Structures are given as C-alpha cells and as structure tokens.
C-alpha cells in the first residue's frame, strides 16, 4: 500500500517544492527514499514553525528538527504501518503538499527567503494540524532515541546527566520532591542562630528524631534565639522577631521538612509573639516569651506525655502481649509506666529499615527488665499472631481521623485488624494533641515526606565491617557523599565499586536508568484500623480528632 501511495506523493511534492528548493533531497528522484521522504518533508515543514517568529535563529531551530525527523523516519521505516497510521501519514502528506503549493505561490512573490530557510516558511500556513503532528513526531523521535541510550553500556555523555537526575524521582510522588536536604551549614543566612544551625544538622541526621522530640528541640532552640535577640532600632519586637524567627524556620525546613508538631508549636509561638504589647520593654517581653515556650513544652508535651502514659498504661493488663512499631517515645513511656505498676506483660517490637528506631526502644525496655521480642516488618504476621494489643505512636493525626505515622504503621494496624483467627486486636494510638492537624489525607501519597534514597543503599551494616563504631550515624554522611559524587561526576568511576570489598549491588544505582529508589517516611493508616486515640484530653475515637483540634487551637 505504501508503495502505491508514495510515488504520486513524491512526484507532487517534488514538483511543488522545486521552485522553492532546488536542493539535494528532491532533485534526484530517490528510489529507496520514497518511503521516508514524505515524512521528512512534512516534518521539515512543521518543526521549525517557531523559528518563524525568531527568524534570526533559523539554524538553531532547524537542527533539532532534523534530528527529530530522522528519528521519526527511522521509527517509521522500522515498523510496518497499520491502516490507521497509513491514513494519518497520507493526511500529513496531503497537508504538506498543500503547504508547499501555498508556499510556492508565496515564494513566487518573495523568492529570496526560500533559499536560506525553506522550512521556516513552509511551516507557517497550515498551523493546527501540523503542530500536533510535530508533537507526536518529536515524541517518536525521543522514543527512538531512548533505547539507544539504555543499551549503551558506558559511553554516557554529560548531556544525559540532567535527564537521569529527573529519572530518580518517583512519578507518583513527584509533588513531594522539594529541593534535596541541606547537607552542610554552608550558605545558611547569617541571621540563623548557632543553636538552630546545630539543630538543623541533628534533625537531618535523625539525631533528633520523632515528632515530639523535634518539637521540643525546636522550641528550646528558639528560646535561645529569643534570649539572644535584640530588637533593631526602628522596629518593635512583635513585628521584627517574627521575621527573625522565620529565617530560622526556613533554615530548619531545608534540613528536614517540618513536622506537624513543629508547625503547631511555631504557630502558637508566633501568635504569642504577635500578641506581645508593643509598649512592653524588650527584656520583659523576652521573658514572657521564654516562659511561654517553657509552658508550652510542659503543657503540651511533658505533662501531656505523663498523662497519656498513665492512662494508656491502664489499658495494659497482666499477661498481655503488646505489639508496637518502630520507636515511639510515648509508647516507651507508657510501657515503662505499666511495668513500674507491676504488670507482667510481653512486648513485641516490629522495626523497619532504614532507621531501625525500634532498636533503641528495645534497648530501653530490655534494660528496664521487660520481656522483649524483636523482629522486622517481614515478621509482622508472626508477631501479631499472639498479640493482645497494639500500641502505636503517631507523627500526626489528620482531621479525617487517620493516623499519620512512620511508614509501616499501617501494615501493623492492618494485620491487627485482619488476623486469621478472627479475633481483632485492639489498636491504641498514643498521641499528644499538639500533633493533631487540620489537614486531611486519604492515602499516603498526598501528604508524605521523602527521605534521601541513598539511605536504602547501605542495607544493614555488614557484621564483618571493621572500623564502624555506630552503624547508623557514621555511614550516612559517607553514603551521601558517595551518592553525590556519583551523580555529579561526569564519568562514573567503575573501579571504585570493584575496589570495595563487598559492594552492594545498589552502590551506584543512580547510573542505572529506569531504576528508582523510594524512601518515604510516613504512611496513613485508615481510621477504621484505629480503635482508640489516647491523648492528654482523654481517650477518644479517631473521629474526635477534628473537634479536639479545634478546641485546643481556639483556647
């Protein structure tokens, strides 16, 4: 079929374009080129359409166009055409022909332009149908190029770099990739207080980890900021301190996105600052604010934790087997309180990669003399088998009653609710009201935090590795550097991995096209998996979260 169509077309296109372009492609009636020729014609007609406007850059514009048309032509000759494609092709050819005829007329008027850039003029008249076609063609061209890139083993050029970096963000979570976390304090504004600088790095390295801990640490750092703050001339404290603080906050959020509790605390602090009477002398205003911070920490977190631990510990009974996930400070406190009350129970801790927060919890509980069992996420169904209660910590509770917590929490809650025996295990969440938020989330994708994917590469510190004091902290900077170096260096060093005694297969995953690592921090547990939320204001069903949140913010 293609053969029957082509001769007519080529002849017509040849006749049409002769006046405009006496150039090489058409002058010799090509026998094998007949198939790609029409496409190339139409392509050259449409792709440089933008160059029409900026006529000076004709040469630049024509280059990619040619590349695209080449790719498209290659793609077209590769595949046998379906009838639909043939039809499309025919249409495009027809349009091209018309364009040329029109062009020929125009060229008759203004012949000078035709010689230099025939494509540019051809492109203009039949605007709409061709633009889509051009889009399609350019896509085709890309597609034709991509496999080549994938198959090429080593010869990666610098041009590939940017596309590869984009590759690494998982499409579904695209909205969550902000700028990468700050790695050093270099570039931080001079207004940022040293306590905040230090805290930022601690937050980034998970030295200060956990919603409450981050909240308290931030407030304490801000207290020092306020203590060392002097109001510049010409402004009032209530006005200027807020902006001063926001520099600190911005710095902190570049180290790690702020937690819900941090956000709530900062909001309360800002409210307190703005309500300072401008007439109060600076010293007493600062004293008031520091007192406010102390009160906030005490009321919202320290005492709240005690209240929660007391009331949650009442839920623990002799002989219970309590399952918990990762390392929540409030759950730890609860279990220790219950233990102090003389209750005999067993704790089963489920932990997850890459943070292994449960290890610290296990250590603390074991040191206190509790009976502790420890397993990882893969052992959930075994751990939950003989569980009688599940205690979970929270990063936040959303307004639609869902629990937003360390990734994996939802699996534990789900297993508790869907146990094979048919007996549901109660799931109890311990959460301060400062972690309540008015945000809502239906799934774990809308709201989340994406951590550095390189954290996943070093699996567990290998048992035989020497010279590693603490598996968690020291390896991380190394990884980061490794990852950075690999991605920024134009040529990956293949010897680096082979010199390494036992390199992880993922050690240079960033060079593998199409491979992505996803390290999300949180997931959202459906409200129906949560039976009870223990807060300092009492034990509530998850549906009560928005009401409590409104009450506590309106106080």
């Amino acid at each position, binding site marked *: 079929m293609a053969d029957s169509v082509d001769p007519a077309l080529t002849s017509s296109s040849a006749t049409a374009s002769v006046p405009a372009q006496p150039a090489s492609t058409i002058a010799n009636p090509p026998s094998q080129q007949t198939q790609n020729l029409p496409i190339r014609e139409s392509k050259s007609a449409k792709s440089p359409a933008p160059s029409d406007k900026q006529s000076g850059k004709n040469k630049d514009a024509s280059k990619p166009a040619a590349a695209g048309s080449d790719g498209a032509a290659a793609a077209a000759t590769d595949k046998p055409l379906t009838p639909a494609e043939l039809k499309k092709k025919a249409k495009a050819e027809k349009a091209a022909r018309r364009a040329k005829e029109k062009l020929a007329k125009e060229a008759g008027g203004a012949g000078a332009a035709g010689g230099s850039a025939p494509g540019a003029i051809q492109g203009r008249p039949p605007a709409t149908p061709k633009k889509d076609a051009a889009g399609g063609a350019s896509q085709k061209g890309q597609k034709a190029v991509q496999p080549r890139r994938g198959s090429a083993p080593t010869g990666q050029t610098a041009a590939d770099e940017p596309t590869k970096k984009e590759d690494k963000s998982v499409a579904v979570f695209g909205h969550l990739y902000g700028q990468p976390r700050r790695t050093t304090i270099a570039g931080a504004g001079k207004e940022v207080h040293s306590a905040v600088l230090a805290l930022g790095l601690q937050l980034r390295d998970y030295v200060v980890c956990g919603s409450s801990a981050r909240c308290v640490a931030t407030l304490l750092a801000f207290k020092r900021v306020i203590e060392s703050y002097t109001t510049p001339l010409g402004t009032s404290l209530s006005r200027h301190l807020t902006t001063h603080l926001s520099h600190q906050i911005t710095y902190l959020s570049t180290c790690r996105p702020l937690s819900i509790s941090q956000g709530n605390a900062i909001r309360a602090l800002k409210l307190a600052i703005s309500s300072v009477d401008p007439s109060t002398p600076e010293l007493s205003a600062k004293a008031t604010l520091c007192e406010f911070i102390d009160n906030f920490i005490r009321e919202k977190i320290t005492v709240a934790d005690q209240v929660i631990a007391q009331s949650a510990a009442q839920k623990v009974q002799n002989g219970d087997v309590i399952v918990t996930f990762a390392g929540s400070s409030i759950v730890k406190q609860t279990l220790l309180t219950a233990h102090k009350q003389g209750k005999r129970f067993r704790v089963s801790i489920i932990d997850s990669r890459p943070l292994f927060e449960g290890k610290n919890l296990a250590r603390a509980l074991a040191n206190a003399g509790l009976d502790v069992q420890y397993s990882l996420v893969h052992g959930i169904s075994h751990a939950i088998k003989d569980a009688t209660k599940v205690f979970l910590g929270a990063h936040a509770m959303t307004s639609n009653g869902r629990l937003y917590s360390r990734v994996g929490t939802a699996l534990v809650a789900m297993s508790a609710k869907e146990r094979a025996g048919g007996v549901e295990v109660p799931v109890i969440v311990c959460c301060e009201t400062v972690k309540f938020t008015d945000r809502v989330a239906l799934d774990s994708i809308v709201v989340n935090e994406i951590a550095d994917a390189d954290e996943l590469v070093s699996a567990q510190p290998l048992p035989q590795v020497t010279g590693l004091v603490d598996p968690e902290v020291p390896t991380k900077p190394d990884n980061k550097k490794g990852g950075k170096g690999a991605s920024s260096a134009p040529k990956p060093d293949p010897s680096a991995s082979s010199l390494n005694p036992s390199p992880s297969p993922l050690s240079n995953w960033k060079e593998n096209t199409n491979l*992505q690592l996803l390290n999300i921090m949180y997931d959202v547990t459906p409200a129906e998996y949560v039976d009870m939320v223990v807060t300092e204001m009492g034990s509530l069903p998850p549906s009560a979260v928005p009401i409590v949140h409104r009450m506590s913010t309106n106080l």
Partner: protein
Amino acid sequence: MPSTTLALTPGLGSFLKSLKTHPVETSIENLISLLKRRQIRHSRSCATATAYLLRHVVSVCKTSDPLKLIERVQTVGRRLVAAQPREMVVGNVVRRVLGLIRDEAEDDHEAEFALSEAGSESQPQTPRAFDDPSSSLPLDRDMLSLRGEGAERSSSRPTLHSMFSLLSHPEAEFSPISTPGTQSPNGRMPGHGPGSKDVKAEVLEGIGEIIDELGQVDDQIASYALEHIHSNEIILTHTSSTTVQKFLLKAATKRKFTVIHAESFPNNHENTHATVSGNPLGDDDELSADAFQKPLIALGITVILIPDSAVFALMSRVNKVILGTHSVLANGGLVAAAGTRVIARAAKVHQTPVVVVSGVYKLSPVYPFDFDSLIEYGDASKVLPYEDGDLVDQIDVQNPIYDYVPAELVDLYITNLGGHAPSYLYRIVSDHYRKEDISF
C-alpha cells in the same frame, strides 16, 4: 539433556557433579546433609537435586521388580524428606517418581495381559500428561518400541508374543535410532534381567522428563505473562524470585509498565537489589545462573525499589501484585518468603488482585492445620547484627523465613499448566500425585 539446569548453585552444582563419580549411598548422604545445612535452598534447586538423585538411584538399582523399585525410592525419599521436612518440593518429586514407577508397572502389567490394548493404553499413561505434546510424542513411540522389545525378549507367553510383535514390529525399527539418543545420558544399565529393563528404562525416561520440566517451568509460566500484564500497569512484587522475574521480563518485551519491588529486607534483600539493578552478586546461588539475564530496567521498565514497610503506602496505586512462592499447598494457601502475607493482605484491603506464579512441582499434597510447623526461622543476626550484641542477650530476636498465606488472599495461581483459582488446586494435586503416595 537438561544442561541448562546443571550449573545452578555451588551447592547444587557440586552435588550434581559428584553424583556421577560417587556411589549412590554417598550421594544420598551428601544431599541429606546439603538439605540439612540449607546449602541447597531454593525450591527448584531442591527439586532438581532430588530428581537427579532419584534417577541415579533408579539407574543403579539392581532389582528388576517395580515393587522393589518403589520400596527403594520410598526409603530414599523418606530419608530426604526427614532431612528437611519443610522443603516440600523434595517430597513432591519423590511422589512423582513413585507415581511414575507405579504407572509403568501397571502399564507393563496391562501390556502383558491385555495386549490388544497396549498401543492405545500407553498413550495416556506414559507421558504423565503434563509435558507439551511435541516432546511427548516421540518419547511415547520410543517407549512403545521399548516395551515391544522387552516383551519380545521376556516372551513368557509365546502365543501372545506373536500378536504383540504384530503391533510392535513396524515400530521396532525406530528403536535402534531413537533409543541411543534418549538413553545415553542415563545409560548406565549393565546387564540386568531382560524383563526389568523396560520398566526401569521408562522410569528413567520419566524422571528425565521431570528434570526437563524443572528446567523449562519458568519459561512456560512466563508464556502466560502477556495475558496478565497490560500496558501502563503498576505491578508490585516482592523478593527476587526467578519465576517472577522471567514472567515480568516476558511481558516487558511487549508492554511498558512499572514495577514496584519490595526488597524483603533481612533475608533476601541482597538478591533483590542484584535482580533490580542487574549487577549480579557473583557469590550467591540461584541468581548466578540467571545473571546473564537482563534486568527489567534494561528493557525500559521503570523499577521502583521500596522497603517492605512502604507496601501499604503504595498499594493504592498498584494494579496487580505478582508473587513468587516457596511451595503451594493443596488448599490453595502458600508458603512464601516472610512478608508476603502482609503484602497479600494489604492488596486484599485495597482490592488489588494477587497473582501467584509457581511451577506445578511446588504444588504439595499437604493440607495445613498447624501453620507454625510450616514456618522456618532463620539467622537472627540478620535482624540484629552482632554490633548490638548487648541487646541480643536481653531480647528475643525473631527472623521468620516463610509466611503462610491463606488461600483467600490469593486471586489467581499461574502454573506451567495455566491459570487456576486457588480452589482448583486440589484437583491438580490429585492429577499429579497418586493417592497411595501422598504419605509415602
């Protein structure tokens, strides 16, 4: 003949090599200790080793009597199963070999008594009905001719002999051509009684077929891939199952989709990372054989590696969960790598279909009542390394290797025979194992 399965793992490879040189009893002990020490791990390696060992056992067996053959295979099988009761494929292969011998014995019986039916009878019985017809056809003819020969030579009933030769004569001409080809690999059968030769040869033939099946099973399963994976789907899988990888690779040749790969942390994450990135580990078993195999990313498939904990978070975007398995039970449940159960459960909660790919050889005639007995626990230091030695003393660290996944969490099984509902599996079990061999 199955040269592809030969050099699989150090454990399996060295065992298969030693099989040729060592006496039978040593080989049996060897395999038992390999199984006990878990140096042979993967289902397919275990099955292959068992099949080769049984072929060896049968071929050097001096006895001619099928009953004695059965007894011999049973004793060996019992010892193997006792060595590693959770490796159910070992029992499965033994059962199939037993079934094979029984079939041949019955066939032989019928051949001797009801000769007029011998030709038609052998058709459904001998090839054990699971292999593709193309390969079974010449074999079948071959067996028929062999049987003819045997009957001719034993010739206890001269009157029948003439009638039988009437049937077999035209085909006897095939035997000199075809028998050397098919028998040469297992051709260590010095002078036995002439009457036994046919049964034994056919049994060896049948075991050869089982070995062949073990070699081809992944590709056969993969041939169903295009029916189940469509364009732009998001597939979630878990651990580095070769079967699943081949399945996905097959689909990747035609379709574009996205794979989310959960790494199955402490027990198999290194293999998973190797599978995903295409950088073979080098030292590890199973994968090294398939290391030449391209990773999915080379075919333009986007692979997202996630920790196991993120499964629930991503499940809402997943279109299909494809899982490999360790063994499949007759009630439709399965024993698979630890963590599979939560994944299947999370899929159920999100109404995502769960597809399990598994060779028929993993299908075990076991109805589980005590699930805990199916579960194996592994090295605790993988969960908590020795750096945390102080902790290890104080707490109880658990590292389950397998999970039992109940049948209601599985939507579809894909075996080398096709797709089945979990509720249909008992039927395949009864097709493949004879009742008297279920507990041998």
